[in-house]
């Protein structure tokens, strides 16, 4: 149960470079009125970032990844349940592996 000094330094370094992009836009841009095109552009950010993260995860998930994600999509569309879609995805992935 101890923290090595080099791990502490590493975690603090990683935390600092993670905190800056998390905090700065929220603090700075909440003071300004954004131009409409930028606000519209930002509406597509969540869907774009999620699709990219998902596709990249699938690259390393193997052959079972795609059918498992299809199941997760289907459950999410039918039930609107995030938990249900996580359970369906993991269950199908487990069954196919």
């Amino acid at each position, binding site marked *: *149960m*101890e*923290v*090595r000094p080099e*791990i502490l*330094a*590493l*975690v603090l*370094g*990683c935390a600092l*470079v*993670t*905190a800056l*992009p*998390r*905090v*700065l*836009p*929220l*603090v700075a*841009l*909440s*003071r300004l009125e*954004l131009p409409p*095109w930028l606000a519209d*552009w*930002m*509406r*597509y*950010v*969540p*869907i*774009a*970032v*999620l*699709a*990219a*993260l*998902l*596709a*990249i995860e*699938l*690259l390393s*998930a193997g052959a079972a*990844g795609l059918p*498992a*994600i299809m199941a*997760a*999509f289907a459950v*999410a569309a039918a039930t*609107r*349940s*995030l*938990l249900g*879609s*996580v359970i369906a*995805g*993991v269950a199908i*992935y*487990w069954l196919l592996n």
Partner: protein
Amino acid sequence: MTHESFAAGMRAAVPVVLGYLGIGIAAGVVERAAGLSYAEVLLLSTVLYAGSAQFVVTSMLSLASPASAIVLTVFFLNLRHLLLSAALAPGLRGVPAWKNALLGLQLTDETFVVASGRRPLSPAWMAGLNLAAWSAWAVANLAGAALSGAARDTRTLAFALPAMFAGLLVLQARIQPRLREALGVALFSGAAGAGIQIAAPGPGAVIGATVLGATLGLALERWKSGPKSSR
């Protein structure tokens, strides 16, 4: 500013909490297996608090990478939060800067998606969402560390992450005012992300695909709602 309560924020976090339990356990298992102590697992999960970055730190530590390379990789990996943080900002206008700073510290892909459908955002609601997700993440990491000796199949548990992305994508699509453009953006960003990742693996793929996808969405929207006079 609305006054939705802290408790309502915690309730909104339930799906994220459950997803984090799965992914956090997987993270804790691999962190402990990479030689980190329980205290170091707790430090990593509470202070860094970034799932994909923790997996990267762990795998680079096992490869004995220099700390500078690890910090730089984490920086690029987490740069995408610039976009998420900027996208939340209009909903938190008029909130004191120190509150926004604290709320931003605990911003993740998942809490962002839960919060992004709401505007204006209540700081108390957002704090409830953040603290519930953050606590669940720390608990799950510690539980994973404890299970590390027994667990063999972290690959299956870790699939909770893409499965959660899939669920969030569907929920996000449902609240988009322009569904067809949103689906186009999703398909395009997914293909671009995978393509960039194959061509040049690294954290730039998510950022590149996000910028391209959102730009496509804006272009489709503008092009449909009124033809441009100049070409």
